[in-house]
């Protein structure tokens, strides 16, 4: 939770925007800043009638800074507050140089310093259950979890929201690139990626602009790196209009003894910059692009988005792994957000050493770049290595083999004689442009306890329960609701997106989307594997951020568990609005508290994560959206449990059990949103003990061969789960609603309630007694609800309706192709031609529907995306 070294220029900002002044008055927590005299004496000095940018005589040097103490500096434009600027002056005993000012503005930004979130994130460490698996945790580039005597796994999720809005393809692509380098920096070979994506309404014109580019960017970068994309989320919500959420997760594998660290230890060691040349792309990513909430000028910030080159990153991966295996590096850090500034200061601060850097040695794409630009550049595909002098030749040779540039740009210097840490001294053509204590940038940024206040509308919102909405109560209405719901953008088939991702490369993908969790085999000999899921539900968190965060954790945990894996660690990406809004800050604090409590209850630690603030356009913040990733282990991936019904072993079908309890819980549900455009009430009850029991039963049953399929229940309830399990392998089912759910609208409740802690499992005949005994042993409610049916290609809910799998498939698969071009079912179709196929089913259904909110797609035909450019 210290800095967040990668994902160039994601989120976060400081208070550059004018509104900040207002927030600053009340927003300054007691723990924050000491001296408050803004820009002391600046106007007093007669020498300072020019702006910093006007130098004709070379860069702003330390010498010059000492001689011109009163010079006006553009710190507000760089996102620094008056008091923060004053603190920098006190730290240095003079005004900062232009380069130093750039460095502080970046490192003290929200993005790098976590100044608003730090006081809350501490709970992840304080409440963490003891784990002897955790080899590296929060504060490292990524958490590392030991999974066998010899192997460890590292994983992390990070946001790249703002860049993806401004420039969808490159923003998303470099989001993948950034998280991959985090994993690489730990000594791991990256082995898979996932992406959690949130956009505005599916039929909104800006979604048509952003989504195709983001998906192509995630695919373009990941595919070119040879990393299978094994899952993720695709969610549409009007609150993300103008503020998409692009969260990328990467998982890597390393031998335990190859774990790397970032400390620049050992005076005399060489500082090597390896990878792409440094250019002007991404300058100010963290402090300018992310420096304000979104507005119409965002488009003009495109130069602040980095441009990715996955080929160079692929070479960088291979080169780094070869260096690790040969034991050639002492320390390593990736460059991402805050670029060289972050890498130099963090590596030095971690070791307490100093560093001497010759900045003109940095290979540049653009020779006219100035020192502060080189230090701030967020050019992608770069790593900083700390190398013993006698290993330098070998390092350069390996880099050369892989065709990547590696350049010695400096050396590690000793701590000071009095035991104080060393200083970071940077020269540019023999002129000293930076002379600072590294930790003042990396570790000692401002920390704010910002004011928090429960949103004023929350009580009313919670009182407006979806359980009071009119519900379908006839078989016909129920049937139509099923068809309408599975065709709705959040519940429909996501193949349009996922088939743009390579899921096969590396040959170890055992499960990938649309399965509940992705599974990667990490040891071909033993079959050892990891399962991963990412989940979040902004609507639940909006209604109750504490329990919403727990529900996200519960769902992710459950998704991993239903594959038979044992959940062991958690990563998270916390997407929120402006921390300067006390209501947002309250949501954030509640969500963190919920997640930390939840992890403690489940006994699995948070191993790392990322915070993304300022996700709002104007005054409207997104729903608080904690996205939670859970990592699970499988001793043998051959034991994994898939989600699809398998052709039954006997003609009378296998048995389908519903595990857990179904309550009348519709608030925050997909149904309330789709059919009533409604958000209110309190989200489903969360019971993490029950989740643990569910996980244990499925793992035991899978190990004993009692289950052939399992699928979690979440958005869209039982109906959605049944349809997905039927369509996966084209096997039908016959379901009987339990007696107590047969009256009035209760069949609907049984099919669409979103009660947590539930899953369905398929048990072959002859195993049912043993399975029931297992459930009894753990006191897990298990209800026999039906049988699989290979002879009739239908989903039948007895006494309610029968739907053909073909009809279900048409409704399920037509939505995204209709919205974004092409068709999922006809590969030969040309995406240039706006697709029409499939509309009938969806349209017919939506015209039916109940009270129906105004949110009903009304201009689908116009919004067909054909953005293939």
């Amino acid at each position, binding site marked *: 939770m210290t800095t967040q070294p990668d994902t160039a220029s994601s989120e976060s900002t400081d208070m550059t925007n004018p509104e900040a002044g207002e927030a600053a008055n009340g927003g300054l927590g007691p723990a924050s800043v000491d001296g408050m005299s803004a820009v002391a004496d600046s106007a007093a000095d007669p020498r300072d009638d020019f702006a910093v940018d006007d130098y004709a005589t070379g860069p702003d040097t330390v010498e010059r800074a000492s001689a011109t103490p009163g010079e006006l500096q553009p710190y507000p434009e760089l996102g620094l507050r008056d008091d923060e600027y004053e603190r920098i002056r006190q730290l240095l005993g003079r005004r900062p140089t232009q380069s130093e000012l750039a460095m502080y503005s970046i490192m003290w930004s929200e993005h790098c310093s976590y100044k608003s979130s730090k006081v809350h994130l501490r709970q992840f460490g304080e409440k963490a259950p003891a784990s002897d698996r955790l080899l590296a945790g929060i504060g490292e580039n990524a958490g590392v979890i030991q999974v066998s005597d010899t192997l460890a796994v590292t994983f992390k999720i990070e946001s790249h929201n703002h860049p993806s809005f401004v420039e969808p393809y490159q923003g998303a692509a470099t989001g993948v690139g950034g998280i991959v380098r985090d994993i690489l920096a730990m000594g791991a070979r990256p082995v898979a990626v996932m992406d959690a994506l949130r956009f505005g309404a599916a039929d909104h014109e800006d979604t048509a602009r952003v989504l195709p580019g983001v998906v192509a960017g995630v695919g373009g970068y990941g595919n070119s790196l040879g990393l299978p994309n094994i899952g993720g989320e695709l969610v549409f919500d009007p609150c993300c209009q103008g503020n998409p959420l692009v969260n990328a997760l990467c998982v890597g594998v390393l031998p335990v003894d190859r774990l790397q660290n970032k400390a620049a230890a050992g005076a005399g060691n060489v500082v090597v910059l390896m990878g792409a040349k440094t250019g002007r792309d991404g300058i100010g990513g963290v402090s300018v692009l992310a420096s304000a909430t979104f507005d119409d000028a965002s488009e003009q910030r495109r130069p602040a988005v980095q441009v990715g080159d996955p080929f160079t990153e692929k070479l960088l991966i291979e080169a780094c792994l070869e260096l690790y295996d040969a034991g050639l590096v002492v320390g390593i850090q990736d460059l991402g957000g805050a670029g060289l500034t972050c890498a130099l200061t963090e590596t030095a601060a971690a070791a307490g050493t100093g560093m001497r850097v010759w900045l003109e040695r940095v290979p540049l794409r653009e020779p006219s770049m100035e020192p502060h630009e080189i230090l701030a550049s967020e050019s992608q595909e770069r790593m900083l290595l700390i190398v013993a002098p006698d290993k330098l030749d070998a390092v350069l040779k390996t880099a050369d083999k892989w065709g990547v540039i590696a350049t010695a740009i400096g050396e590690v210097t000793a701590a000071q004689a009095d035991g104080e840490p060393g200083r970071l001294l940077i020269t540019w053509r023999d002129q000293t442009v930076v002379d600072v204590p590294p930790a003042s940038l990396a570790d000692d940024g401002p920390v704010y306890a910002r004011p928090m206040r429960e949103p004023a509308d929350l009580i009313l919102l919670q009182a407006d329960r979806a359980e009071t909405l009119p519900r379908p109560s006839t078989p016909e209405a129920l049937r139509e609701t099923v068809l309408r719901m599975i065709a709705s953008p959040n519940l429909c088939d996501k193949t349009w997106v996922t088939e743009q991702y390579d899921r096969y490369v590396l040959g170890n993908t055992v499960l990938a989307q649309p399965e509940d969790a992705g599974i990667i085999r990490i040891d071909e000999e033993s079959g050892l594997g990891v399962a991963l899921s990412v989940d979040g539900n902004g609507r639940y968190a909006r209604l109750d951020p504490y329990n919403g965060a727990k529900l996200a954790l519960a769902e992710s945990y459950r998704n991993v568990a239903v594959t038979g894996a044992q959940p062991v660690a958690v990563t998270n990406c916390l997407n929120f609005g402006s921390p300067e809004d006390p209501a947002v800050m309250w949501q954030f604090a509640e969500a963190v508290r919920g997640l930390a409590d939840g992890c403690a209850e489940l006994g699995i630690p948070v191993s790392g994560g990322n915070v993304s603030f300022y996700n709002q356009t104007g005054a409207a913040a997104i729903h608080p959206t904690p996205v939670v990733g859970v990592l699970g282990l499988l001793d043998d991936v051959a034991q994994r449990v898939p989600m699809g019904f398998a052709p039954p072993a006997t003609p009378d079908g296998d048995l389908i059990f519903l595990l857990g309890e179904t309550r009348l819980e519709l608030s925050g549900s997909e149904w309330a949103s789709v059919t009533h455009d409604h958000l209110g009430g309190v989200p489903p009850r969360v019971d993490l003990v029950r989740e643990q029991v569910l996980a244990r039963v499925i793992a035991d049953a899978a190990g004993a061969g009692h289950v052939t399929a399992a699928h979690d229940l979440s958005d869209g309830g039982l109906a959605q789960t049944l349809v997905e399990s039927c369509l996966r392998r084209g096997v039908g089912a016959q379901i009987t609603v339990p007696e107590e759910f047969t009256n009035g609208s209760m069949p609907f409740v049984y099919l669409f309630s979103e009660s947590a802690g539930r899953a369905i499992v398929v048990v072959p005949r002859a195993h049912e007694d043993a399975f029931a005994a297992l459930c009894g042993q753990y006191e897990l409610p298990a209800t026999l609800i039906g049988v699989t049916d290979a002879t009739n290609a239908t989903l039948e809910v007895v006494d309610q309706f029968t739907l053909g799998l073909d009809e279900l498939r048409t409704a399920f698969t037509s939505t995204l192709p209709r919205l974004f071009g092409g068709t999922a079912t006809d590969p*030969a179709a040309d995406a240039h031609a706006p697709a029409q196929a499939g509309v009938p089913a969806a349209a017919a259904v939506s015209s039916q529907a109940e009270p129906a909110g105004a949110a009903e797609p009304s201009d689908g035909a116009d919004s067909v995306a054909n953005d293939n450019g």
Partner: protein
Amino acid sequence: MTARVGVVTFPGSLDDGDAARAVRLAGGDAVRLWHNDSDLQGVDAVVLPGGFSYGDYLRCGAIARFAPMMESIVAAARDGLPVLGICNGFQILCEAHLLPGALTRNQHLHFRNRDQLLRVESIDTAFTNSFSAGQEVLIPVKNGEGCYVADERTLDELEATGRVVARYLGGNPNGSQRDIAAITNEAGNVVGIMPHPEHAVEALTGPSLDGLGFFTSILKHLAGAPA
């Protein structure tokens, strides 16, 4: 003696490990070859794997064909060395003029990854002799530039001489002319295929085991080849 099958790694190759695994699962020895070397190390056959060689920022495969290893492979292929190009490997074989035609951007302009049904049209090659004529196989396809194109005369000739090795069934994933998924040279020792047989060699990780046939065919071919 076990067949030794070389798998070339170019900078940007991605499926080289998968190809090597497929060779091993088929019973052969996989020998890793480096793009910048020219020594074929006496291998009995070569696989050019999928990926994005040299980033493929130019035409796919356009730079790879100039690699020192490719010069050796082109010469050896002309002397009958069995060479299988998968995806990027197919593109490289076309750029190297070992196969006619070219692979262009998918008609729908998206990268597309799906399980694809193919019909094996020719079993007279070094890589398809384990199949039966007309056999339908399920193999993953994944590419952004897999649309096979050639002039009409070349297409007619490929068909007339039985050099179309496999066609897409149940939907053409990229717009390839005449649904062509794989072709061979006149001698039948060089095959280019756009889908990825190396991803269909294990029940746990692939949609089928159909891909293995392409690799067992090499061994069968070598066993039958004159010493």
